[in-house]
């Protein structure tokens, strides 16, 4: 099979992946080692494809696709959920990690914000979300005005901003929020999950348009992993459900509105 990109990766011996440092999707340990469910899956698959190493660089969600286009990364494995317009911009693999959306709010949810629509309806509720992430778009689509959607650089900042009352809601996938809450160990915070007006999303490894051959090779190995049960062994310790990922497909997710 003709796959120049893969040949190139094999030759250089590593693949450059973009991650977000948002546990449990992606994480960087104290020693600088990259872990998290998405990179772990990618590492195994690339290994099987004959690329022994993955080199991760941390990036904002918004910068991932431009970075891919700018050839800064060979793949994005970061919990970048599949959405139609993203499917149009990059070549996704089959689903890997699935998760619903969650809100982080002050204990007792003083403004009673349980859905994106609630936030839109409330006159002065503000929501924080990663720039260029799914949640930012969901909020905007639900009708929250731009000036009430605060772009937050990273999870820790978002947590901090809820604690400090700078924003009312910080939205991330369920597992990310629960990881933040666990780490913060702060009684004044509360998690709302899942958010009912947000669908369950799945991510996949994202490749540059034009690297479909590489993506297809990735898909083949991914399917083998899923079948052998190794897939569940990798992601379930992080709290993800392998069944969820296997019950849907790229085709469905990319069509989902």
């Amino acid at each position: 099979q003709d796959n120049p990109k893969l040949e190139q990766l094999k030759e250089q011996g590593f693949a450059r992946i973009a991650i977000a440092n948002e546990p449990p999707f992606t994480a960087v340990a104290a020693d600088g080692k990259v872990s998290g469910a998405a990179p772990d899956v990618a590492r195994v698959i690339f290994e099987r494809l004959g690329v022994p190493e993955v080199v991760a660089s941390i990036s904002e969600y918004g910068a991932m696709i431009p970075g891919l286009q700018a050839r800064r990364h060979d793949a994005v494995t970061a919990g970048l959920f599949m959405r139609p317009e993203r499917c149009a911009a990059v070549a996704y693999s089959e689903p890997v990690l699935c998760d619903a959306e969650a809100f982080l709010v002050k204990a007792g949810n003083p403004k009673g914000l349980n859905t994106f629509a609630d936030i839109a309806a409330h006159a002065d509720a503000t929501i924080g979300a990663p720039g260029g992430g799914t949640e930012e778009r969901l909020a905007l689509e639900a009708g929250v005005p731009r000036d009430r959607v605060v772009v937050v650089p990273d999870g820790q900042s978002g947590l901090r901003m809820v604690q400090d009352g700078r924003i009312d809601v910080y939205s991330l996938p369920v597992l990310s929020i629960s990881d933040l809450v666990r780490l913060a160990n702060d009684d004044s915070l509360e998690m709302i999950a899942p958010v009912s007006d947000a669908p369950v999303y799945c991510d996949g490894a994202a490749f540059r348009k034009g690297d479909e051959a590489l993506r297809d090779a990735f898909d083949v190995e991914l399917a083998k992993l899923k079948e052998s049960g190794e897939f569940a062994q990798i992601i379930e310790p992080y709290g993800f459900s392998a069944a969820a990922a296997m019950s849907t497909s790229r085709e469905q997710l990319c069509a989902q509105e």
Partner: protein
Amino acid sequence: MIDWSGYIGLILQGALVTIQLTIMGCALALAMAFIAGLGRLSHLAPVRWLATAYIEFFRGTSIFVQLFWAYFVLPIMGFDLSSLQAGVLALGLNVGAYGAEVVRGAVQSIGREQFEACVALNLSRFQTMRHVILPQALIVMLPTFCNNAIELLKATAIVSLISLSDMTFQAQVVRAQTGNTLVPFTTILILYFMMAMTISTAMRWLERRLARGLDGVRS
């Protein structure tokens, strides 16, 4: 509680990247400062225009914008740069543009009579610059170069925004891992300050060394 030693190690790794960026950026900036600064004094109008365009462009647009441009736009246009290369390029070209004005100002601060003495001694333009003007101008430039180097050091912090794992970036990582903001940021503030002090101490030493020749302590 938190095992800080590992995280401090991470920050020190970042410090190495910051130092690397600063040194390479300064080297590029220094080269550009002399090329463009002397270019602006050239007899050839096109060279002068080119130097002026470079200087005004890089001083005019924000370093921030330049960095994002080098990182995201240049590759799309076909220039493949690693993030370190993009960082060094943006920092060096930006600070070099400021340095160019320093070089020009210092050369112009050397009295016209020195140039005339060189004409009377039949030195070529290059010899005049190399042996007479620049050795004197260098001392005038040094204090401002010192400031420029510190500006460059400080500017390296923004490469963290293009995910180059410098000191600021690693502090962010540590913050995300530990949930503690005060410790990593205070640590890097102190480290940055120590680096700045090192630069200014080194420059003062250099200045004294060079000024000695002019004072004529040599006998």
